[in-house]
């Protein structure tokens, strides 16, 4: 079935709600309105307002309520209109959800999902990539699909997972990605990276909206005789160390690419892991290409300068290939 990324999200929600009556949705304008990006379009008609709950504008209390419902056997999925607003629920996420199991042995099967990322001129509060706040918080899982197939398969797995999952959907991909998505029981595992394109010369390790960017660069560079491997991490916490090492060993050169800002970004962590585990396998420095260390500017040309681009990626790749 040909589906866009956001339709794949919707389908995953629908299938999981049909499968398990404990699954229900909470969020602002998710009912009649169908969600800020229409990820829940029509679901209130199918499941009623008790399972597709329109909520007041109150992210912190919403996440708290989801945690309580999860303690009591439900599997809530909370939608954020923009993932930027998860900052309003920081306490509930990092103190309650993340540490409940460690403190008490209480599982918290919640999914906190919504659109992240830039490229749509949303400005400073509607474009952020908040993953690293949560990657730095033991007790959580952090997922970000790059394809419609993964959007569906990973969301289904996230809903079935007994841990709190931060599920970042990239809004730039919502309607730009369309592909054949399997119907029904198609699950993608959390914690496993995916080789989006095999290649022998150099690994680009990335996730989210940077995956299509890397694939585009790979296509272009293939014409120049450079074969890039593109590794789509898919899950950022826990990282797939095996997958990362395997790719690094295949190509012996690694560039980490992410749309998140540079300092404290995931590239630093992956670089450290490679130093620890694959130092002898590498034939060059580990490079990173990231967004600038600034807030996300509104002005479209400035945002373009802020975000990594295919041209800059090609440049960095060529620099690394020279080693």
């Amino acid at each position, binding site marked *: 079935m040909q589906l866009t990324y956001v339709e794949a999200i919707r389908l995953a929600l629908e299938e999981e709600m049909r499968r398990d009556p404990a699954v229900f949705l909470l969020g602002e304008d998710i009912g*009649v309105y169908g969600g800020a990006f229409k990820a829940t379009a029509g679901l209130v008609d199918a499941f009623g307002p008790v399972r597709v709950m*329109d909520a007041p*504008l109150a992210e912190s209390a919403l996440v708290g309520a989801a945690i309580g419902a999860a303690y009591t056997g439900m599997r809530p999925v909370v939608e954020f209109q923009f993932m930027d607003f998860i900052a309003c629920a920081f306490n509930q996420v990092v103190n309650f959800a993340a540490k409940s199991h460690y403190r008490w042995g209480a599982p918290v099967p919640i999914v906190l999902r919504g659109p992240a990322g830039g490229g749509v001129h949303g400005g400073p*509060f*509607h474009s952020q990539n908040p993953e690293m706040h949560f990657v730095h918080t033991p007790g959580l899982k952090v997922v970000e699909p790059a394809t419609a197939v993964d959007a569906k398969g990973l969301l289904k797995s996230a809903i079935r997972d007994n841990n709190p999952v931060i599920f970042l959907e990239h809004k730039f991909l919502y309607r730009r990605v369309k592909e054949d998505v399997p119907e029904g029981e198609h699950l993608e595992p959390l914690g496993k990276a995916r080789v989006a394109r095999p290649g022998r010369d150099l690994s680009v390790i990335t996730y989210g909206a940077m995956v299509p960017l890397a694939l585009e660069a790979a296509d272009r560079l293939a014409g120049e005789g450079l074969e890039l491997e593109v590794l789509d991490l898919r899950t950022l916490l826990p990282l797939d160390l095996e997958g990362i090492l395997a790719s690094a060993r295949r190509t012996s050169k690694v560039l980490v690419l992410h749309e998140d800002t540079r300092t404290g970004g995931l590239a630093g962590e992956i670089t450290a892991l490679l130093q620890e585990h694959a130092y002898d396998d590498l034939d060059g420095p580990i490079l990173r290409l990231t967004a600038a260390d*600034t*807030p996300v*500017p*509104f002005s479209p040309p400035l945002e373009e300068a802020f975000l990594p681009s295919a041209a800059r990626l090609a440049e960095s790749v060529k620099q690394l290939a020279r080693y």
Partner: protein
Amino acid sequence: MSTSSEPVISDRVAESPEKLRTLLRRMMTIREFEHLGEREFRNGLIRGYYHSYAGQEAVGVGFIEAMDLTRDYIVDHYRDHGHCLAVGLDAVNIYAELFGRRAGVSKGKGGSMHMYNQEKHFLGGDGIVGGGISVATGVGLALKRMGKGGLCVCFFGDGALDTGTFHESLNMASLWDVPIVYICINNQFSMGTRLDRHSSLTQLVDRAAGYGMATEQIDGQDIGVTLAAAERIFAGVRERQRPVFIEALTYRYQGHGIHDKPHNYRTPEEEDPWIHRDPLLILGQRLIEEKIMTGEQIEAMRQEVAAELEAKVEAAKQSPAPEDRELYEDVTL
């Protein structure tokens, strides 16, 4: 000042003809500004999101007119274009911000929801709903310490009442006797969710009354009412150094944002009575009744305003885009 859940019928003040004309012009400017802004959005010149203030003009213009911006401050919410115009920012700079240009109010970095101007004591539109309400507490505290009788006006929508910061902040402001006028622009919707589906109480004054402050519900369509209420309430707040909560009843004509089709969740029939009580219409009729202006003069004024704004759009288009190096400027001092 009364604590009441009934709409208070305040008498219109007897303003001078000159002032009434100015107020009409200002409201028209906001209406036409949004009209042209939405056009430029459709033309692709404005990217991202666009939230129109059309329909709510009498609230912002009435309250801001009564402020003394040499000593008072505004903390605004994200639907901020109208308030920027009401404090006297040049439409060229507001359009330039929407276009993401260097001449923008926020140098193109903030966009539609994040206008800010220290000179006009305009402390921001803010894309995080409810966030500004807590900031107002500190602004009010500082103004109180300065002892010049300044007050903080904090604007937000009905949706913002659902946030925790609203409740935390009102408690503090009441506890600490902070001179803040909270103005809830109740346009009946939090995005696509109607008031009775997002708020446990629909008389929003009742949600503030629990913090022991005076509250008042007013007609937000008639600028005679909003201005009179503002003058009276501001005087009381300056004197008593206590916060007050106002619920101004109004309506958002457009969808939540430009991409939103409101008839998915509301009907043209329910919009009708509001459109019949349009703030520009109400003041226009008053001007005609009081023989201050004729209908033709009002229409001529509208055309003049529209032409002026067209020129502002053109001027804003002339502003260059920021250069790449500006990305790195202003991150820290």
